[in-house]
């Protein structure tokens, strides 16, 4: 391989367990990165993708060691190199861009100084040249007014800008290979689209080889030329991006693709059963055997080798790839569309709700004056019927979680009221609510690692609401816990387990079980799937939908992911800076005409298809405060009409299908503009 920048041969990395067994995290990885190529490494958490990316820098995490194989960078084995020699390569030849740029930048040093440090270390430039180079780099990553930017501290930049600075620092040494570890995962959808576009540009402009590690097939599709799919420490599929994402010939990849909700295909995607095996548990046979629909006897006894299929230019680790290749185009029922029975009974009603985080100043308190006339969330009117799923959508800072907290009573609404079950006003403080209304509204959180007490067993976790609301004890309590766990498809033997002994999906099931144990009328779901892998996400969404069918529960579903929202909700409310922009039946919100902000959001959605490019219609500026008057979206709106947007709050306009849009542009005109 002459033009390979990096060549990895038969690499295995692992650790020695307490019992003294050798357990591999990476198993016999053989691949190469060519000059100028962008390779996407995709896999779910625990697949070993980050370990592989770190090994490409010659770094093996503490506790792990190289079992066999080599990682050659221009025929030097990085894994056996002296630290001193490695220092010359890292940064100069191979650079890494970490996941969270905000945490990887030193908070008390100016941006310019930090880039200068990288330049000092990795180049031989003189001071004057370095200053010029800093501006040049910041320009290259498209940060506005580089001279001013260089004087700022990291906290003065938004997440997207911080990520750009990280890219600039990585480019300082003019590396041949750029490693990116989930560089856009923490970013908002619109920012993510912009950063990916920048990376594409840099790859073309500098000819740098890139390795893009991500769990997000959508992002991978946008940047990569070649995709490597990892499962349980092995490469299962390796080939050109279109080949992999359009007709995958490995059952794991096709299952993964099927479980991603897509905007073009409304409805709940199929989920893959089971979860990735723990390292060291699979001793013989295919590691995907347990979850594979095509598995047969042969698969459980023999491990398939990575086989190169010449006419497809793809390597695959499956005995049955030919079959998969042939049957691929048959259109199956990929999604189940949801049908909810919505009763004509109002479950929750929010009228004119405003929420403010600002603390009253002492002087204002004395004068009994309202201090904050520009609250975080303002003027929210929402009605939710029994059995409905209402989704709240928006980027970070849009106030969607704030609204949920206020409904749950955790945050005091400043103005307005929340009505429950036809006109019963809920007190806005938790202490004043009666037990029955507390029971009726339950929350499910984003991250089950945080929402489950790590020192409680599953039994203790699920028993909390049962003891509190129904006063159950002893045998009765235990029976009820088992019954609830069965509903979320967890067996009795989970009772004695601790959260750390469960997989991500199982943990979220326990959280769902805890919410349902209270027999609630309304469940508030706060980004419940965004911490989960895609295959698990589909399973949780399906579970929520089944439970809804059984109990007629009403959901309020908060998410930043438009495709997920499209899959599960009846109605969608789009929020920007704590103000409603658009609300309507979900099938209409996703059709034009729509609010310019919805248009921006829809444009930035990344589909796992390299041929569908995101549309970048608005700048990815981050606004910290909602504007004091006028339309909330005035600062970023690509369709701003003029002064009126800055001065007047736009009126509600109702489209022919019942979706309401808050914009100064006439709805018919919007339709023409967005065609």
């Amino acid at each position, binding site marked *: 391989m002459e033009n390979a920048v990096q060549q990895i041969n038969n690499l295995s990395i692992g650790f020695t367990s307490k019992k003294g067994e050798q357990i591999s995290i990476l198993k016999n990885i053989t691949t190469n990165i060519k000059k100028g190529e962008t390779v996407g490494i995709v896999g779910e958490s625990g697949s070993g993708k980050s370990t592989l990316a770190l090994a490409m820098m010659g770094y093996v995490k503490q506790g792990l060691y190289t079992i066999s194989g080599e990682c050659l960078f221009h025929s030097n084995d990085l894994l056996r190199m002296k630290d001193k020699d490695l220092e010359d390569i890292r940064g100069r030849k191979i650079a890494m861009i970490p996941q969270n740029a905000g945490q990887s930048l030193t908070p008390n040093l100016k941006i310019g100084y930090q880039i200068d440090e990288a330049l000092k270390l990795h180049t031989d430039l003189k001071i004057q040249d370095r200053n010029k180079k800093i501006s040049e780099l910041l320009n290259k990553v498209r940060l506005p007014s580089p001279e001013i930017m260089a004087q700022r501290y990291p906290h003065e930049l938004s997440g997207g800008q911080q990520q750009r600075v990280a890219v600039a620092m990585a480019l300082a040494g003019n590396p041949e290979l750029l490693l990116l570890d989930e560089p856009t995962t923490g970013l908002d959808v619109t920012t993510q689209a912009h950063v990916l576009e920048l990376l594409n540009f840099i790859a073309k402009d500098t000819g740098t080889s890139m390795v893009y590690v991500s769990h997000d097939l959508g992002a991978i599709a946008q940047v990569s030329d070649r995709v490597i799919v990892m499962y349980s420490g092995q490469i299962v599929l390796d080939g050109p991006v279109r080949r992999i994402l359009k007709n995958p010939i490995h059952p794991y990849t096709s299952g993964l693709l099927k479980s991603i909700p897509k905007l073009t295909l409304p409805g709940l995607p199929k989920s893959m059963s089971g979860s990735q095996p723990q390292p060291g548990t699979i001793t013989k046979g295919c590691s995907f055997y347990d979850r594979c629909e095509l598995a047969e006897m042969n698969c459980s006894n023999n491990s398939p080798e990575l086989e190169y299929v010449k006419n497809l230019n793809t390597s695959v680790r499956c005995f049955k790839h030919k079959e998969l290749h042939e049957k691929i185009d048959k259109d199956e029922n990929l999604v189940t569309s949801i049908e909810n029975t919505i009763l004509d009974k109002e479950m929750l009603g929010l009228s004119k709700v405003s929420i403010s985080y600002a603390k009253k100043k002492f002087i204002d308190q004395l004068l009994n004056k309202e201090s904050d006339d520009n609250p975080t969330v303002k003027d929210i009117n929402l009605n939710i019927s029994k059995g409905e799923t209402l989704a709240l959508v928006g980027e970070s800072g849009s106030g969607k979680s704030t609204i949920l907290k206020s409904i749950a*009573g955790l945050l005091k609404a400043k103005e307005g009221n929340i009505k429950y079950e036809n006109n019963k006003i809920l007190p806005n403080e*938790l202490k004043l609510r009666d037990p029955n209304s507390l029971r009726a*509204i*339950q*929350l499910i*959180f984003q991250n089950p690692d945080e*929402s489950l007490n790590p*020192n409680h*067993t599953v039994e203790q976790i699920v028993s*909390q609401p049962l003891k509190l609301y129904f006063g159950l004890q002893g045998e009765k309590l235990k029976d009820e816990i088992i019954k609830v766990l069965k509903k979320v498809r967890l067996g009795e033997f989970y009772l004695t387990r601790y959260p750390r002994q469960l997989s991500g999906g199982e943990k979220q099931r326990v959280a769902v079980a805890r919410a349902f144990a209270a027999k609630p009328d309304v469940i508030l779901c706060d980004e419940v799937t965004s911490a989960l892998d895609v295959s698990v996400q589909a399973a949780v969404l399906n579970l929520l939908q089944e439970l809804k069918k059984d109990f007629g529960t009403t959901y309020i579903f908060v998410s930043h992911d438009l495709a997920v929202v499209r899959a599960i909700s009846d109605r969608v409310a789009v929020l920007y800076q704590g103000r409603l922009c658009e609300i309507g039946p979900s099938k209409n919100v996703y059709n034009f005409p729509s609010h310019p902000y919805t248009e921006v959001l829809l444009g930035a959605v990344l589909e796992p298809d390299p041929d569908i490019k995101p549309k970048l219609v608005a700048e990815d500026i981050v606004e910290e405060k909602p504007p004091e008057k006028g339309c909330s979206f005035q600062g970023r709106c690509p369709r701003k009409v003029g002064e009126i947007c800055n001065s007047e709050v736009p009126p509600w306009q109702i489209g022919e299908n019942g979706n309401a849009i808050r914009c100064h542009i006439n709805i018919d005109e919007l339709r023409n503009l967005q065609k």
Partner: protein
Amino acid sequence: MELQVEKPKSNLFKIYEIISTMASRPSGLIGLTILLFHVVLAVTSPLYAPHDFKAIDPSLMLLPPSSEYWFGTDSLGRDVFTRTILGGRTALTVTFFGSIIALLWGGALGIFCGLVGGRIDDVVMRIIDAFLSIPWILAMLLIVSLLGTSTIVLIPALGFFYGKGIVRVARAATHDVIAKDFIVSARARGHGNLSIIWNEILPNVRDAIMVEGAMRWSWMLLGFSSLSFLGFGVSPPTPDWGLMISNARGLMSFAYWAVLAPIVGLSSLIIGINLTADAFAKALGIDRSTKAPV
């Protein structure tokens, strides 16, 4: 797919597990051995003490170590070996119960302040700060001279002064968990503060508080011995290391044995408790000595 069914572990088994993990490191094993040795010695020493600890005999003054008097005799002709093996009894008992009191009130107040926050927290913590700024030994001397040196006075007094630090640790540990979603979830369900403390916070901060308590124990031992050294701890003729060191220090140049034995006793016990506490922390997964990951 076969599923492994785990049997719930009994508390006794958990304790066994923790102790065996502690003993699996050399430092933990050494610490546990020293501590165990001292505890056994303290419990059983009256049974085999070779001489009467309070028998004064001027003819036996300051004898060097011999087969009859293993560690020699002190300035009043008492057997140093007998007094050394008996000398840890009071110190160990007083400080053990003292640290439990420190643990209880410090932990409870710390968790409460961490949970409630706001003005109450501010006021309580400033009071704690004020107490921290008073040299404890002066305050102890005051208390002891007013109320006497009985263990009924010493245990709560030491417990109070060594609990102040635990308040801070418990409060910080509470702050770590208080923002987690499972607390928010419990609040949203409508649990009261007591239930949240007992069910949600305590299991998560218990380890940190217990390790801190174990560390305080060794400091308290040193503190108690200092009091004895100054003549405010154990009253003679009851043997005590601090007191023995104090009595024999002037004769150190020609009767080193009379001061050496209690010093070895006291410092080995403190080292033993320290090593045990460190191993305990490691076994619970609270490692205070590891470097930041590179």
